């Protein structure tokens, strides 16, 4: 699968061959940094002053790189396809190699960041548990009531939440049985066949 560049995107990236390859490397580092932590316009101004170009040009260059990286990571295109795609831009071989390296080095992490954007339920993070025996309460003295208290840590977007639950021993065994059935299902013939065929 090849990437298709819009004219605007080509124009923005067109700034890259005009500067030194070490500068392109620096832009690549900034692009990856911005993808991880969000953009910081001050950096554009600083770079613009150093290179003596309008800060918009820098911004377009970095954003063009960010778009190039996210699109190719999103589609998970192969090394060969990436190289063939950037060929259209007419850059030097050295610059193409630099971009390929940038893509391959950061693909995994960028895919992980993009994966977090997908709509999803809160994600399981951790489970803590405690075993208690209730001995008495206001309403009833002399009890022996075993309880399992569980703290379920979930993560949704960037926020972590923890919820507290209780259950009794019999229900705990039932829950366990049910979740083990879920785990076993992944190894069933039906699932394995589907997983093999969707690639």
């Amino acid at each position, binding site marked *: 699968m090849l990437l298709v560049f819009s004219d605007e995107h080509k124009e923005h990236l067109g700034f890259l061959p005009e500067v030194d390859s070490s500068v392109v490397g620096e832009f690549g580092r900034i692009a990856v940094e911005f993808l991880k932590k969000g953009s910081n316009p001050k950096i554009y101004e600083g770079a613009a002053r150093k290179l003596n170009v309008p800060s918009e040009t820098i911004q377009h260059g970095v954003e063009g790189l960010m778009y190039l990286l996210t699109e190719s*990571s*999103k*589609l*998970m295109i192969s090394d060969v396809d990436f190289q063939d795609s950037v060929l259209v831009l007419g850059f030097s071989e050295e610059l193409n190699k630099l971009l390929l390296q940038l893509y391959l080095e950061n693909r995994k992490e960028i*895919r992980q960041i*993009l*994966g977090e*954007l*997908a*709509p*999803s*339920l*809160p*994600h*399981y993070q*951790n*489970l*803590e*548990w405690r*075993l208690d*025996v209730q001995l008495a*309460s*206001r*309403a*009833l*003295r*002399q*009890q022996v*009531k*075993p309880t*399992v*208290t*569980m703290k*379920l840590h*979930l993560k949704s977007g960037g926020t972590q939440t923890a*919820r507290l*639950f*209780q*259950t*009794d*021993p019999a*229900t*705990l*065994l*039932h*829950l*366990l049985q*049910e*979740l*083990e*059935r*879920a*785990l076993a*299902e*992944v190894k069933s013939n039906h*699932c394995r066949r*589907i*997983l093999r065929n*969707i*690639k």
Partner: protein
Amino acid sequence: MELSDSVVKGLQTLADPACFDFRAFTAFTEVAFDSLLSSRTDRALDLPELKKIDQALLKHCHVATTTFILEGIKQNADKSTISSCLEDVKFDSERVDAFYTSYQKNKRNLESLLSSIDRCPPHITDASWRLEYCMKNGHVHNVNQPTFLISFNTEDGGNEGTSSDVNFSCTLEQLQDLVGKMKDAAKSMERATQL
């Protein structure tokens, strides 16, 4: 067992053969136990055996008897405690025996009723799950990962028994982690019961 004056007075009335003959007494105690265990309590005292007795008196005796029953269950009172308390309020031995028989018969159910009155975190009652295979989304293609959607059904005793679901998703590794930790808990529990 410490009883308030009002309860003592109510029980004394119940012990008095001039107020409650033995037939009225057995019908009345049965109603007292039933009213604690069943949710239908209106007109419970509307029985032919109790027609002759003054309504206000009947209500006072009912409150006294149910209070006595609950206090006994709460403290896990044994036969001698119950008997001596009832003898103190002038129950004859026939009434003491009849009362204790009903007490013994309903003890278990009343205990579970009282143990359910409790403030505690939501109680998990069941779990459902769904297995999905995520292929792609708007941001990433070729995801190709199995995902489990787990739903814990919970009941909140403190919040009038309202039930709600907790939904969350797990990757294969995360579910294995969850199951492993729950297994640890189950094993510890098993070991604790063997002590």
